[in-house]
């Protein structure tokens, strides 16, 4: 018997998508901002950890995949399996680390909902292809961009329906018609839970942006902490994208996209000018590589700063600085922004 891997993969991903829908059907209310904000910091982290572990398990594997891209000595080896709950536990009680984790994982959960929506739509389109297989002229292959845009429009339709915004629903319906998505497809997607994922997406994005705003308040007067707005060129599109970055001392760099123009302008005095060393970061964890440890064995911070300054600023030295809990002032010495003598060191 031959195994049909295509069919098997599809079944596995449908099962995963169904699991995410079921989770949000049961727990979705907890992510509504008014309910979420009634939780204390520890309860928020517990909710995000439980959600992450349920809907997108396998953090250790993903972490390893990212570390494998680095030269062997620079890789962080994890001694044992761990859960996201453990990562969260280690952050509890450190306000800025708690906030960074909240931003990072609410964003990740929102994107998990969005990826599931795309898979759901893609599966539906595949089914349609099977239906029309004898009518070649009716077959149409969506490009990834079209798939993304159609997912966005379906999301608009379902959210407008939930908020009873008749005008917005009408506009989204007309846009879907132009994309050849009709009532039948909409109803099928509703049955599969597309609308539940839309709600999960907007709620988690509002949690992310609320946590960014709170962390700006926490950080704006802290002169020891490096954070702020970083404008990075997307390697694929060549276009500039805005990121909110926090160097979480001892843990690592946390970066997420930021979109609200007002939130961006509130960061005008906090430009992040250090290298982004991990856009694809998978988690924050207080572990170090042999390479990083070799610096900490040098002795005190002053010696580490001196050595890193000699090597020169780059992504690797920045990772060492963040993991080594160096302050913003010490980083500025490494980057030649202030003179160590002037600084009295």
């Amino acid at each position, binding site marked *: 018997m031959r195994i049909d891997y295509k069919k098997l993969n599809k079944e596995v991903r449908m099962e995963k998508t169904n699991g995410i829908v079921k989770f949000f059907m049961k727990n979705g209310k907890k992510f509504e901002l008014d309910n979420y904000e009634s939780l204390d910091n520890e309860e928020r982290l517990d909710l995000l950890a439980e959600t992450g572990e349920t809907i997108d398990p396998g953090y250790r594997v993903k972490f390893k995949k990212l570390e494998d891209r680095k030269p062997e000595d620079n890789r962080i080896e994890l001694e044992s399996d761990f859960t996201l709950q453990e990562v969260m536990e280690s952050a509890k009680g450190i306000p800025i680390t708690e906030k960074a984790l909240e931003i990072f994982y609410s964003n990740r959960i929102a994107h998990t909902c969005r990826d599931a929506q795309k898979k759901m739509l893609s599966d539906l389109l595949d089914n349609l292809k099977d239906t029309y297989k004898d009518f070649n002229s009716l077959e149409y292959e969506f490009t990834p961009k079209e798939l993304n845009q159609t997912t966005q429009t379906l999301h608009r339709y379902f959210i407008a329906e939930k908020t009873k915004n008749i005008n917005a629903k009408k506009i989204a319906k007309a846009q879907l018609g132009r994309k050849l998505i009709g009532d039948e497809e909409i109803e099928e997607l509703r049955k599969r839970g597309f609308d539940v994922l839309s709600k999960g997406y907007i709620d988690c994005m*509002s949690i*992310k942006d609320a946590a960014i705003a709170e962390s700006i308040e926490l950080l704006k007067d802290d002169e020891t902490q490096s954070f702020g707005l970083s404008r990075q060129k997307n390697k694929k599109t060549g276009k500039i994208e805005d990121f909110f970055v926090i160097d979480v001392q001892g843990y690592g760099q946390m970066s997420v996209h930021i979109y*609200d123009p*007002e939130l961006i302008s509130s960061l005008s005095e906090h430009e992040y000018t250090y290298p982004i060393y991990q856009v694809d970061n998978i988690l924050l964890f207080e572990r170090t590589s042999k390479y990083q440890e070799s610096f900490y064995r040098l002795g005190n911070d002053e010696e580490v700063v001196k050595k890193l300054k000699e090597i020169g600023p780059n992504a690797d030295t920045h990772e060492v600085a963040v993991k080594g809990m160096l302050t913003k002032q010490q980083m500025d010495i490494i980057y030649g922004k202030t003179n160590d003598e002037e600084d009295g060191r």
Partner: protein
Amino acid sequence: MNKEIVENLIKNDYLKEKISIIDKLIEKEDYKEAYFKLAVILEYLNIKYIKHKYNLDMPNSSVINIINTYIDKDNKLYKEMVTINGEYNQVDTNDITMDDIEYLAGMVDSIYMYMLEDLGEFI
């Protein structure tokens, strides 16, 4: 832009003028600027409405701050602004389409209509 989508906004002379600027940007296919101008109109409406209704100034008018202002005061506007926040997070600002503009315009128009029904003209 289809006038039906912004039928309430264009009844106000000040906002009509702003919509005509957006129309010109659309004609020039400067979709990104048109989108951002619509976002500014929405921010302006919220600041004015909050001042009139609650006598609150909004020195920080980020979407999340507006959401937090409505959170225990107006369930409808709270939900609409959570939707807007999701919308800003999902659109590719480097590749804004007419669909993005139309949808945001429709949202702004219906939010303005709700505010008008509640307060009467406040611009």
